């Protein structure tokens, strides 16, 4: 081999010690470092965001902030409790709409969706996932807020629910598709009706995966800001019922971050810390409970 190459004009030594090969090897090595550098460059913002949120959040943190309602920026006892309440309200309403509707749509697609009509529905659902969320806010404003007559946490919850439906539908279908057909056939062989089979075999077997997908969707809507700007709007007090406008953590972060008051900016960092902790918790719980299921956007 080597002798042959040598006689073929690659010089005295084998090709592997030739200059050309060394250049190629060096390019490979350099590219390793270049791609690694790109990767680190991409990670820098992630670490910077996490670090800054916890650094600034902890610096401004005091427990009273979590317990006190909102207030003027000059009173240094005002807190973010109203926004936490509002986020819980809006997320619960959103989940109450989004989870059942999403599961029904996903089950339909998986169980009855072996046709070209369902293929079109799938494209619609995938497109709905990526509709800018501010558009949902605008639509819900026209449909709910103008009818009720004022901003309400109910309208905010509806907007979040609409965003959640396609997310849950997609993950439900994916998870049902993973259920082994043997179980389903066994169910039919035992004479189960289609409803029993769908509920007790299909959904029961996919329940873990669906639950993990649902949790991720909850985490996602919890951080949504744009659809709440003209639906739940903002307020300095906790909502007393679902027809009140309400502050939510993301909208509070937005409003306070662009305000000129240092105290409010501190509250924004605290709210960001709370929001990220809630988010991470859900992500963490999902990973702990369902290590085998993994999904990303």
């Amino acid at each position: 081999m080597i002798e042959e190459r040598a006689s073929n004009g690659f010089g005295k030594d084998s090709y592997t010690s030739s200059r050309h090969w060394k250049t190629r090897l060096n390019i490979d090595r350099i590219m390793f470092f270049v791609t690694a550098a790109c990767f680190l460059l991409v990670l820098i913002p992630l670490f910077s965001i996490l670090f800054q949120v916890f650094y600034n959040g902890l610096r401004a943190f005091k427990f009273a902030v979590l317990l006190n309602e909102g207030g003027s920026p000059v009173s240094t006892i005002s807190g973010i409790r109203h926004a936490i309440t509002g986020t819980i309200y809006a997320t619960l309403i959103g989940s109450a709409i989004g989870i059942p509707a999403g599961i029904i749509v996903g089950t339909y697609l998986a169980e009855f969706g072996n046709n070209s009509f369902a293929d079109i529905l799938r494209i619609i659902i995938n497109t709905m996932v990526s509709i800018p969320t501010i558009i949902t806010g605008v639509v819900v404003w026209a449909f709910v807020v103008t009818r009720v007559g004022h901003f309400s946490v109910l309208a905010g919850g509806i907007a979040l629910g609409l965003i959640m439906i396609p997310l849950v539908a997609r993950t439900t279908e994916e998870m049902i598709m993973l259920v082994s057909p043997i179980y389903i056939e066994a169910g039919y062989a035992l004479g189960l009706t289609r409803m029993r089979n769908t509920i007790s075999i299909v959904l029961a077997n996919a329940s873990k995966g669906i639950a993990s997908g649902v949790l991720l969707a909850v985490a996602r809507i919890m951080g949504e800001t744009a659809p709440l700007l003209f639906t739940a709007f903002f307020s300095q007090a906790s909502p007393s019922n679902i027809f009140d406008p309400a502050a939510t953590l993301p909208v509070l972060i937005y409003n306070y971050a662009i305000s000129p008051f240092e105290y409010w900016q501190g509250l924004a960092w605290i709210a960001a810390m709370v929001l990220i902790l809630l988010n991470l918790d859900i992500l963490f719980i999902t990973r702990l409970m369902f290590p085998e299921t993994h999904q990303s956007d």
Partner: protein
Amino acid sequence: MANEKNTANSLLNSLASSDLSAKSLADKWFAPAMYLLGAGIPLVLSFLYLFTLIKESWLAITAFGLRLFTQTSWDPIQNNYGVFTFIYGTLVTSFIAIIISLPLGIMVATFVYEYVPPNLRVTVRNSLDLLAGIPSVIYGLWGIFVLIPFLKRSVYPGLGVVFPPVQSAIGNSIFSASIVLSIMIMPILVSIIVEGFDTVPQSLREAMYGLGATRWEVTKHVVVGTTKPTIAAATLLALGRALGETMAVTMVIGNSNNPPSSFFAIFEPGQTISSLLANEFSEASGALYLSTLFELALVLLVLTSIVNILGILIVKRLKQSYGGQ
């Protein structure tokens, strides 16, 4: 094992709890109800979005026609509206974001898929998922208090030496918004490209190695070469995300309704469609003003939907051609 046991249990339970031969009323209506709800919910929702936006923006559509898109003045007091500035802002921020993050994304995907040992890959994926899971308003917060001061202190002065217009750059500008966007679209870009790398048959790589190619040559010629359609799809889906991104952009773009001073006015404050909506929608008074904002929402919906459907169709065709994995 546990799964099988569960299934057996649930089967026994259903056997015990129901009379199998009898088809109850609920059973009879199950399939029709699923058809009605399962197909109905997405159809009704998409109809609701389109109908509401078209109905509410009809006033502006009939009043301005296509003139709306070429005019640059945005004047709610005179009730005279032109949206060129916002279309410009939306397209330019998204394109710059793609220009920054596409090459980076391909490099990162190469590193993650071709260079990193498989057991590290999970950690890498988790951190990308984490990046994707951070709410966009927190990117905005970070943009205001960390990124913009950094750009003003360390990047713009240096860049200004090479490229004089940057010297006058203020922090809140189209360019700053593009940088935030490029960070935000990175996870979706990388995860789709990595998925694409995964579909390249191992035998192709091995054939190249067998010919004496280095890892970089395999990546460049075979992996990236065969995944070009996936990269195109990833670009489209990331573009769709960037076009509609609201909060982070609103917080760093400067929110100026003045028309761009030149074609390449990326170092001045600007406005995108979504940031305009976030800023002005809840304060809009007057039917025509509101209707114009609705028309902008409609334009944004159509724009992102077209880009996304194109991306989805490419991904779908790829999945079919690779045998549905």
